């Protein structure tokens, strides 16, 4: 297929996944800040949300203070933020339009429909309830998109590129949540887990929609190191770094087989999967959770670059 | 007179280009006033030069190079034997009837100012030849040679408004004016052996040709205020500077492009002055 088409499919999925991740971050932050304890906390949760979204510089250029109004506006609607939810959905539709013929009708319907519905939310003077409806709409759209892709796409290169975009973005989103919140997960906090910490931990789970999964997997009360384990190494958890790389390796192998040729992106992804496979949470905590996450984010970006270099330009 | 030309075009890219493609109108043809003794084009990268003839009969080459390329040199080296024909161009290859050269282009459109200038200049001249001579002289006198304010994409109208420019601008103003007066005219790119002995030049030369019913094509060099002589080496013709451009290229990828051109025009066999 055309490199540009593959590139658009890759970014279409990335943009949809990104919109979904932002919606979850905003949702979790809204809940966390609605608690009375939050005001006694030492961190500004709105600041954290901006950091998790990875757009601190752009935010500071546009606003003086991080609060509910400014962060919600910036992450969800702002035209000044190229990676706002609205812009992600707009860009996703442009990506889709550019490769209409590589998508199934069902996928187009979802994206085009979401784009039309997006016009109903102008972002101004929204009540919390209205905003919650907006977030629900975004999450529904990404679910419907994934569902339509899963159910209708041929299992060929187009499908694999769409999965790769989705997985790279998803791994990045999970890693960023960990990057911003790693301190509340450190073992030192173990004994002093007050209610505030508890809310922080559950908030992390909520931001990856894993509250229920956690209990199914561990059958335990919420413990910070288990939260870290769930998000990093647990392959049952579809948002974990290990699960993302298990699937990325698979789809990259599918591509290599399909084209009869493999390259840098296959090698790098396999190396990352091996590294995750051979890690334990003890080792990760010992050598530094923060450093581990930082190097993961950098390597994940590099693999995205390798995929682009190999197939998309 | 035997003239030796060495012309080098160098592209440098800060960020190496992934590939580059170039179209060259750098090869002169013979006509009654000039004979090409030897001529060679050399490209710094491995590539194949595909020759073809463009719409106006110019010898053209295209080539593509695979990157990464951080420097691309296109060198021309050759000798041409020339004769003074008082500007009359005979025996040139013609692919179109002269009337085609009444066709306007964006770069050679006569705006109101050029139209008025052309009409004013034409007054008093007895015939078309006289009008063309008058045009040549008046453009030479009216404009100031100045390489700063104009560039490759400057139109005749823009340059005329400034009353400044380089040989390209002089030639395009001539072409625009001549066409406005109903005389077919075209743009010529080539080389010029300077009378002052200065061998190293910053660029090639450009002038114009006008078609007169009794003489055929006659070459006018408004930047020097004279008809073409044996000091002129004629390389390519076109409707405007773009159509006769010595080099047109594009690259894929890369960035920070810088272009350097050196031209040496000397009498063959003479020691270079600088």
């Amino acid at each position, binding site marked *: 297929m055309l490199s*540009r088409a593959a590139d658009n499919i890759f970014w279409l999925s990335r943009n949809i996944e990104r919109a979904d991740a932002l919606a979850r971050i905003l949702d979790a932050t809204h809940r966390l800040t609605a608690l009375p304890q939050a005001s006694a906390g030492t961190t500004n949760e709105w600041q954290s949300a901006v950091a998790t979204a990875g757009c601190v510089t752009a935010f500071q250029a546009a606003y003086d203070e991080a609060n509910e109004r400014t962060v919600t506006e910036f992450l969800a609607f702002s035209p000044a933020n190229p990676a706002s939810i609205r812009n992600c959905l707009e860009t996703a539709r442009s990506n889709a339009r550019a490769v209409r013929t590589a998508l199934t009708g069902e996928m187009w319907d979802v994206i085009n429909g979401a784009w039309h519905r997006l016009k109903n939310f102008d972002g101004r003077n929204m009540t919390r309830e209205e905003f919650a409806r907006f977030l629900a709409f975004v999450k529904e759209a990404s679910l419907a998109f994934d569902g339509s892709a899963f159910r209708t796409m041929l299992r060929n290169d187009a499908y694999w590129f769409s999965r790769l975009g989705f997985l790279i973005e998803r791994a990045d989103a999970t890693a960023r949540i960990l990057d911003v919140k790693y301190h509340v997960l450190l073992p030192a906090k173990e004994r002093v887990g007050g209610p505030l910490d508890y809310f922080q931990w559950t908030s992390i789970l909520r931001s990856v929609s894993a509250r229920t999964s956690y209990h199914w997997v561990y059958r335990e009360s919420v413990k910070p190191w288990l939260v870290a384990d769930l998000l990093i190494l647990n392959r049952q958890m579809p948002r974990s770094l290990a699960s993302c790389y298990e699937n990325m390796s698979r789809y990259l192998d599918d591509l290599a087989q399909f084209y009869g040729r493999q390259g840098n992106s296959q090698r790098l992804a396999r190396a990352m999967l091996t590294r995750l496979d051979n890690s334990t949470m003890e080792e990760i905590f010992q050598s530094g959770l923060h450093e581990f996450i930082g190097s993961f984010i950098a390597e994940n970006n590099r693999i995205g670059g390798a995929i682009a270099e190999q197939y998309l330009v | 007179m035997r003239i030796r030309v060495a012309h080098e075009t160098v592209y440098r890219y800060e960020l190496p280009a992934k590939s580059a493609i170039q*179209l060259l109108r750098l090869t002169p043809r013979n006509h009654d006033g000039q004979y090409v003794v030897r001529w060679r084009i050399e490209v710094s990268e491995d590539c194949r030069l595909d020759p073809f003839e463009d719409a106006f009969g110019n010898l053209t080459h295209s080539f593509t190079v695979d990157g990464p390329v951080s420097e691309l040199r296109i060198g021309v080296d050759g000798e041409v034997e020339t004769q003074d024909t008082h500007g009359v161009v005979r025996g040139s290859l013609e*692919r179109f009837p002269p*009337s085609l050269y009444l066709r306007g282009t964006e770069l050679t459109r006569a705006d109101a100012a050029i139209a008025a200038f052309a009409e004013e200049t034409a007054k008093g001249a007895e015939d078309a030849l006289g009008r063309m001579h008058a045009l040549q002289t008046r453009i030479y006198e009216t404009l100031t040679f100045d390489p700063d304010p104009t560039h490759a994409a400057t139109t005749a109208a823009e340059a005329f408004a400034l009353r400044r420019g380089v040989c390209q601008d002089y030639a395009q103003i001539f072409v625009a004016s001549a066409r406005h007066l109903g005389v077919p005219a075209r743009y010529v790119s080539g080389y010029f052996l300077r009378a002052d002995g200065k061998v190293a030049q910053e660029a090639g030369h450009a002038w114009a040709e006008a078609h007169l019913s009794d003489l055929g094509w006659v070459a006018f060099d408004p930047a020097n205020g004279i008809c073409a002589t044996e000091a002129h080496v004629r390389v390519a013709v076109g*409707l405007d500077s773009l159509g006769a451009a010595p080099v047109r290229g594009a690259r894929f990828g890369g960035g920070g492009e810088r272009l350097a051109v050196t031209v040496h025009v000397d009498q063959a066999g003479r020691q270079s002055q600088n």
Partner: protein
Amino acid sequence: MTSKLEPVAFDEMHAPDGSVRSAYVALANWLDQVPKDVLDYRRREAEYIFRRIGITFAVHGQAEAQERLIPFDIIPRILAAKEWSRLARGLEQRVKALNAYICDIYGKRDSLRAAVVPEELVYRNPVFRPEMNGHKVPHDVYVHIAGIDVVRIDSGDFYVLEDNTRTPSGVSYMLENREIMLRLFPELFSNHRVAPVESYTDELLATMKSVAPATAPGDPTVVILTPGIYNSAYYEHSFLADKLGVELVEGRDLFVKGNVVYMRTTEGPKRVDVIYRRIDDDFLDPLVFRPDSLLGVPGLMSAYQAGQVTLANAVGTGVADDKAVYSYMPQIVKFFLGEEPILKNVRTWRCREPEHLKYVLEHLAELVVKEVHGSGGYGMLIGPKADAKTLELFREKLKQDPANFIAQPTLALSTCPSMVEEGIAPRHVDLRPFVLMGSDRVCIVPGGLSRVALTKGSLVVNSSQGGGIKDTWVLDR
């Protein structure tokens, strides 16, 4: 006062005595029976389908309406088999003559020597491409795809209003209109024998493959070249690519190496043999045409001239379809084919000729004045509908630059029943059939795009001016 200037239009459904013409009998009966709310409902459904599949077009200079829906009229236009076969013969003749003319202009120039067309009209035409001079295209086919706009006037005679030999659009509407009609009104198709149009895309692909360069492999690679998603006809480009099963490429997807065109794919470079290009000549190759074009492919013209790739339509075909050349079409048909034209030409005054200009200035209020190179209904004067100020404005324009204009009588375009606010009423229509020309044959699918002026009394059918579209049925007996 203007009413006496308006000639009576040919009614495609009713004969002058009020009876229904035979091709329309079944439709008329059906329209009599079907309740209005059912029609309303189906019309809304059609609109919904159009919106959902995203068939939109862009309007020049209207940023806020970047994607607008074209109004679809659910009442089909019907042509009897006999009417169509005469029209089809006329179209084939017309396109053969256009192609022969272009071939001659860039080749032997017989028609210029014989003064069939004035040299000036060719050489000073901005869309004449000197670069094509002497360039031989495969099988001498220049106009692979033509859209010929025809109207019916007087007693239903077909007249050509405009030839489109560059990149005519609208064929996706022809196909989608039929698709939607089949979905919404299956019962109507069961009592009409409508000739199918669906084979168009197969015919188009076969046409493209038939003109591949001699250097192409046995199964040539065809692509469609689009300016991109912001082009007004982008939907059509992607629609056709999908139906043909070929790649829809943008300029940046292609590159030229050693005079061969390649596309960048996930598996590396792949050779391209035939490009159905939907971008204008000016933008094709920045090394030859506009240097600032980002839509084209540097080096494409070199590859084309080296015979390594076919462009459809050929470069420079616009020299045959401006409105000044149009006026010479009857002579062009006779000169190249030695035949009388089957389709009529609308009487045209060429303002570049002083006698014609004089007539036009004297009768401005009765005439339609068009720019020689205009299209889409822009820059047009409809004399009888214009106010004094507009007339004066055009009078000045005509005097300033007469060669830029032609004038024609105000035509009473034929009318068809159409569904409008107040119910079913006659509205003026035109028709654009699509003609394909390959290495060895001409193919015209029975039908075309009928455009309808939905505003009462309006004669402008262009979608950019509020016109709508309707399905066109050719009955196969």
